[in-house]
């Protein structure tokens, strides 16, 4: 029981990580993929924050009456990682906008199908060109 209740943040981390990972793999909609990626990254943020917590520790603000502090370093680290995650999301969304302009779709399968179709058309036109007498 302590394995589950005592370490419940870590179980939450694992569950969130798997949900995020599943969304990245299974969803064809690119926006949903990015949402999955965000959930996946958030699970890692929670993991770092849990690591920094010390039982009974106070927030790391100095005061004479406090003896035990939580470790602030993982929290600082994860602030950086959150910023990185934000930049990734922004870039991904910008790419999705441009994908929508170029392909008229934000569905993975549809985009892939269009690319494959391009490839087929191209090789057909190549064959046609080869058959022409030089």
């Amino acid at each position, binding site marked *: 029981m302590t394995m589950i209740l005592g370490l419940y943040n870590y179980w939450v981390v694992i569950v969130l990580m798997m949900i995020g*990972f599943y969304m*990245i793999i299974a969803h064809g909609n*690119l926006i949903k*993929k990015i949402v999955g*990626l965000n959930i*996946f*990254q958030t699970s*890692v943020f929670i*993991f*770092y924050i849990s*690591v920094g917590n010390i039982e009974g520790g106070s927030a790391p603000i100095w005061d004479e009456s406090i003896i035990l502090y939580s470790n602030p370093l*993982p929290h600082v*680290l994860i602030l*950086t*990682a959150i910023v*990185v995650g934000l*930049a*990734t999301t922004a*870039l*991904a969304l910008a*790419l*999705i906008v*441009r*994908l929508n302009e*170029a*392909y008229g779709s934000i569905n993975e399968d549809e*985009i892939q199908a269009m*690319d494959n179709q*391009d490839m087929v058309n191209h*090789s057909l036109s*190549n064959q046609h060109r080869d058959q022409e007498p*030089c």
Partner: protein
Amino acid sequence: MLAHLPILQVIVPLMAAPACLLLRRPKLVWLFTLLASALAFIISILLLQQVMIAGTISYELGGWSPPWGIEYRVDKLNAFIAIIISGLSTLVLLASRTSIEKEISADKHTLFYILYLLSLTGMLGIVTTGDAFNVFVFLEISSLSAYSLIALGKDRRAIWSSFQYLIMGTIGATFILIAIGLMYQMTGTLNMADLATRLPEVAETRTVITAYAFFIVGVCLKLALFPLHLWLPNAYVYAPSIVTAFFAATSTKVAAYLLIRFTFSIFGLSFSFTTLPMGTLFLTLGLLGIFVASTVAIYQDNIKHVFAYSSVAQTGYMIVGFSMATTAGLSAMLLHMFNHALMAGALFLALAAVTYRVGATKISDFQGLGRQMPFTMAAIVIGGLSVIGVPLTAGFVSKWHLVVAAIGKDWWVVAGLLLLGSLLAVIYVWRIVETAYFKAPMTGKDSVEEAPMAFLFPIWILASANVYFGIDTRLSVETATAAAKGLFGVAP
């Protein structure tokens, strides 16, 4: 000034990037970028000199002493990789102005150089830092700018491959972040040297093994080791040609460096190769990578695809050297990293020149180019011979060392397979040579001319370097061996 070289290595391109915005005129921006990159190259040469004479340099960022403050730590391995990155980046930049004229719309030129410098900053940062979390931050700096650079390609497939790379790359980087978190949880430190002393005490725990597993998967995604290479070919093909030349020569080398640094310096040899069966795993993946990627390369229609798959195969060779876990194997790997940077740089720059003149790099576009672009094609032939590993080229030297190292471990079958893999390279290189030299130009393409000097100059520096380091191997072999010995704790 000399004492601050480790930080200048990273700060110079980092500060140069936003400064580009102030210059406005594309030609000035280009000159400025070139200057910054050349400066980074000079700094890395000076660093290697210092390291060779005085040993490992430790630089305390802001005067905070490690392990509390961030430490930049330069030994022979870092300095060697930094030279590869900054040197190739400078040579590629020489051709960039002419190349992006045709491939990127004029209003985006300044942004292109800014992204290029940021990507360079990230790579040099990964290499020089001695702090595990810094590695993650720099990895993301270089990756985010890499995604944007790839999306600059003209074809709409560039955006799609950039997006796919973004998903894969972010998963890889997040895995590395998890690994660093688990390591911090067990040791309470992020400093690499400090981690190295503290990890062995807790090495047998499940947490550390999990950390290593996450790290390996994450870094192998970045390394594009078979079977995690799926993002690489399309990203290389649809990116602007100059970006491909830059990344093919440098970015997988950085991931290979991370693999070496974490496995040998931090987790330690006995943990990864004795406690865990990493040797067998990497040997299998490396050999599979060589054969599968080389075979796929033979059937490609686009020559950029051919050499992209060839790059995946060359990574396989590096990983086979890595899996030997001996000084000879590791120095062969480092040597192959150096030589492959030269080959990939020469080949992809030559392909950029072909794109500039002909407009595409399909195999049919190469018909008759042997006569129309003799110097560019000759460079492709030299690069191709080097990929195969023909004597008197750089590729021969590293494959020779690799085979000797395999024989030194009594791995006769592996040695044979390495040679067999080179035969596959003969096939795909020959296809190009045959088309370019023995077929008449296609109708309507009679007027193709030789590439301009801006291309020929860096292409031929790299092509002659391929020959030079195939004959006079003292510099490259000595540095690689010294770096490898440093990792095994043997005084060179």
